[in-house]
């Protein structure tokens, strides 16, 4: 058998230079078929054996929206700093937030949950958290279906500026992946990580303008929100979908920078720890 390839070092190694980094990313891209199959596997597994099936993807955001609208708009009378009715205002922020938090939580568990695979076969391990995150895109899609119906109910159309959405969401996706990688890896070594993620997500929710407009934040605390990509992006979603405004480019640029750095560092840490995965499960 004529084969041109020379001997290759087995892919796992804890030393990682800049060239190795790029090689890993290229390797990951080559295995996109596997990423697709893994994502479908997650999806098919997620709602099987439940009577309502994918309807659950509607139930969660819808019920949260109803109860939060009642509490924050009817009881606490939180304003929206715009002309949008509160349920709409809330939902535009809530849907991406739910994506962020469920993607992070399921991504953190993804490698631990695939123990039998990780100890048997090699494939780029980042496929697992990435597939877990991509799976949540379906929930996000259903969320936006509800949002569209909700907008129709209030007699509104998405503003023309909605074309900014894919770019903004791309930033969001990079950010959540960058956070998920190191957390999924650390969760193998310390099972505390998943609980920590739960706690941090709850706190983060309140520090992100989902239930209130970011404009009500006092100026001296604003910088905290400007450095929180979730806050920046959710504010930008509201502008482009509900208010027909352009996003605040300076803030979005900072958010994109943070997201990119998070991704690069997160991926690096993941690949650094990858060599020990099979030994730590």
């Amino acid at each position, binding site marked *: *058998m004529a084969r041109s390839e020379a001997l290759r070092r*087995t892919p*796992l190694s804890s030393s990682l230079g800049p060239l190795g980094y790029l090689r890993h990313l290229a390797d990951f891209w080559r295995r996109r*078929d*596997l990423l697709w199959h*893994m994502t479908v596997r997650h999806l098919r597994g997620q709602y099987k054996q439940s009577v309502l099936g994918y309807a659950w993807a509607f139930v969660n955001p819808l019920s949260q929206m109803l109860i939060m609208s009642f509490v924050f708009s009817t009881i606490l009378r939180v304003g929206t700093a715009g002309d949008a009715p509160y349920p709409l205002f809330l939902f535009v922020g809530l849907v991406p937030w739910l994506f962020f938090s469920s993607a992070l939580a399921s991504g953190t568990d993804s490698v631990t949950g695939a123990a039998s695979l990780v100890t*048997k076969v090699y494939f780029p391990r980042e496929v697992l958290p990435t597939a877990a995150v991509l799976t949540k895109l379906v929930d996000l899609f259903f969320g936006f279906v509800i949002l569209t119906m909700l907008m129709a109910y209030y007699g509104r159309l998405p503003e023309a500026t909605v074309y900014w959405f894919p770019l903004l969401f791309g930033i969001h996706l990079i950010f959540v992946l960058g956070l998920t990688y190191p957390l999924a890896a650390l969760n193998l070594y310390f099972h505390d990580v998943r609980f920590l993620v739960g706690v941090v997500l709850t706190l983060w929710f309140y520090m992100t303008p989902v239930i209130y407009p970011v404009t009500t934040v006092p100026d001296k605390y604003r910088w905290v929100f400007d450095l929180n990509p979730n806050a920046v992006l959710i504010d930008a979603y509201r502008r482009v979908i509900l208010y027909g405004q352009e996003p605040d480019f300076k803030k979005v640029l900072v958010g994109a920078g943070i997201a990119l750095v998070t991704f690069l560092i997160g991926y690096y840490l993941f690949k650094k720890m990858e060599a020990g995965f099979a030994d730590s499960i």
Partner: protein
Amino acid sequence: MPTAFDSVEVDFRHVTKRFALREGHTLREFASAIVSRKAWTNDFFALRDVSFTIARGEIVGIIGRNGSGKSTTLKLMAGVTAPSSGEVFVGGRVSPLIELGAGFHPDLTGRENVHLNGSILGMTSREIKEQYDSIVAFAEMEEFIDTPVKRYSSGMYIRLGFAVAVHSNPEVLLVDEVLSVGDSFFQEKSLAKMHEFREKGTTIVVVSHSAPLIENFCGRAIWLERGQIVDDGPAKEVLERYTHSQHEPHLI
């Protein structure tokens, strides 16, 4: 034995594998180890400074008692774990026939799992489509291919896993005791498949407790004991010495 450098398929260079045995998996245990200044981990050497090469097309059996480092050797070849020191090189696509069906998802059907498992083993979607009919026929699963695999018997599970693995066009096949599963008919069929691979020039590494399998199937055997190579040579001779030593355990 390798004849020329370019025909080397697997190359272990001074490979040491150290496992850190840990008590637990929580931060509390980690913190208490730091406070009490006790070592958090206990080191255990699965392999110590092991070097060998396997030539392309060679059929090698690895023998040794439990805990001698056989499985670790296979895992290093599969690229699942990294050596603590030393280097492991592998030539081509490695397909581990280790615990078949590890990548199966219980809720997915046989058909879906063939696609999933194939892509885990490094097949492209196109390759899987081309091989699909042959995989199902080999596993004799035509009837149940659209049933979720959780309804499969363990034998069916293994048959389908084996069928995918042998159709992944491996250049190095790692076999770990799997030939002892399934009914005798399927065992014969898998053994025939293995012979087919041998004729094709696929490199095969077998880990087995079954002396006859290694003697009949492998040309060469490596005998591991406590993470080190005790003997390496023609399968028949190595097995003879190995079997001999088993009756006089104090010699080792």
